[in-house]
């Protein structure tokens, strides 16, 4: 991508991603409600929530937590910016990991027992999904011979056909990334009795709003990776991403939470069988 186009893509991403992410989250809540036989909140509800949080008093437990949360938001935005500018996919993944580290440090800085448990579980989640994320990038590299998103996106054949195992494995860890049941061990959008709200227990007001916006950016980035699997045809790619999200909502509403041991174990087994299996198959061909 030329410099100008890349810049345009980044600006579009920074402006549109929160809007798309917020809408997706609103539709998510509506569909979840319908699956439970309820009427559900308005589609724009996530935006109302964030605007409300902006107006609330901000209770700060540790003065550094603001800085960490800000870094979390900034690095999530950088992740997406690298991705949508057509940059290095591996770099984007590492930027996202760095963002998660800031998120965890922010939770630790509050010295709250609930945030501690949340932060520890968040780290377990990173351990659970990171191998599969790396394998996804490696798989894409083996097919397209490039780590650059622009080369992967313009590859003439859909990656889905050469990477079916990796795609399924990625779907599996998306449940962890989207914080959906059965893997919403560190926090979720519903109250969990034993950990209150996990990592985000101690954040209120503007900080909570920033975390919410960061998650919208993150979700758009993750759905962008799903799109990469069918990038040769953008319409099918977007349909694929939406179907994926619908599947995650469906899984969320049909499962109760698992223990962290099961999260870690199942994610690694899936990465080993589907991810490594797929890559071994490609290498042998």
């Amino acid at each position, binding site marked *: 991508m030329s410099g100008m186009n890349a810049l345009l893509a980044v600006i579009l991403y920074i402006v549109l991603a929160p809007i798309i992410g917020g809408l997706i989250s609103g539709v998510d809540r509506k569909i979840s*409600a319908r699956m439970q036989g309820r009427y*559900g909140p*308005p589609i724009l509800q996530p935006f*109302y929530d964030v*605007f*409300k949080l902006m107006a*609330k*008093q901000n209770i700060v437990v540790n003065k550094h937590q603001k800085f960490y949360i800000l870094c979390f938001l900034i690095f999530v935005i950088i992740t997406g910016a690298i991705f949508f500018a057509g940059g290095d996919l591996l770099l984007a993944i590492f930027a996202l990991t760095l963002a998660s580290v800031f998120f965890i440090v922010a939770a630790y800085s509050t010295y709250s027992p609930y945030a501690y448990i949340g932060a520890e579980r968040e780290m377990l989640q990173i351990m659970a999904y990171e191998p599969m994320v790396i394998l996804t990038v490696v798989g894409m590299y083996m097919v397209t011979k490039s780590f650059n998103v622009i080369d992967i996106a313009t590859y003439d054949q859909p990656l889905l056909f050469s990477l079916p195992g990796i795609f399924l494995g990625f779907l599996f860890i998306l449940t962890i990334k989207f914080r959906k049941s059965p893997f919403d061990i560190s926090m979720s959008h519903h109250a969990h009795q034993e950990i*209150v709200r996990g990592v985000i*227990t101690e954040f209120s007001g503007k900080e909570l709003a920033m975390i919410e916006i960061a998650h919208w950016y993150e979700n758009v980035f993750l759905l962008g990776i799903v799109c990469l699997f069918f990038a040769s045809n953008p319409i099918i790619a977007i349909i694929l991403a939406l179907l994926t999200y619908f599947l995650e909502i469906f899984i969320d509403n049909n499962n109760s939470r698992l223990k962290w041991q099961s999260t870690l174990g199942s994610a690694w087994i899936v990465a080993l069988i589907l991810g490594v299996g797929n890559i071994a198959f490609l290498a042998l061909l």
Partner: protein
Amino acid sequence: MSYLPKSPWLVHYDASSCNGCDIEVLACLTPLYDVERFGVLNIGNPKHADIFVVTGSVNEQNKSVIKNIYDQMADPKVVVAVGACATSGGVFRECYNVQGGVDKVIPVDVYVPGCAARPEAIIDGVVQALGVLEEKYKNMGKVAK
């Protein structure tokens, strides 16, 4: 106008209630009443909540708990006392350990009567609390300036 009335998150505390009112509060979340259609979430964390819903009367044991939850909530915040017990002590009023209604320890904005309070009455109480919430938000701005 702020977005507060569009997204009221509540935290529910069961003081020494007989559980009748608590079940009615939870009934509001069920498909029949579904308060989430007004953006209401039972958030379970005082730091994220805007509305404090208390059921049951105040006694020596839970006095400090109620006070603590109230203090942890971010401004603007409102308190809704649900049921006869929370408003006045109800049938437990004469007990040796009961102090009375929730307003003995924290300022209450809306009183919802009934034993047990009906889900319709609770939703109505929460909706009235939204008006108070908006009012407090305006005043909060004034104090800050």
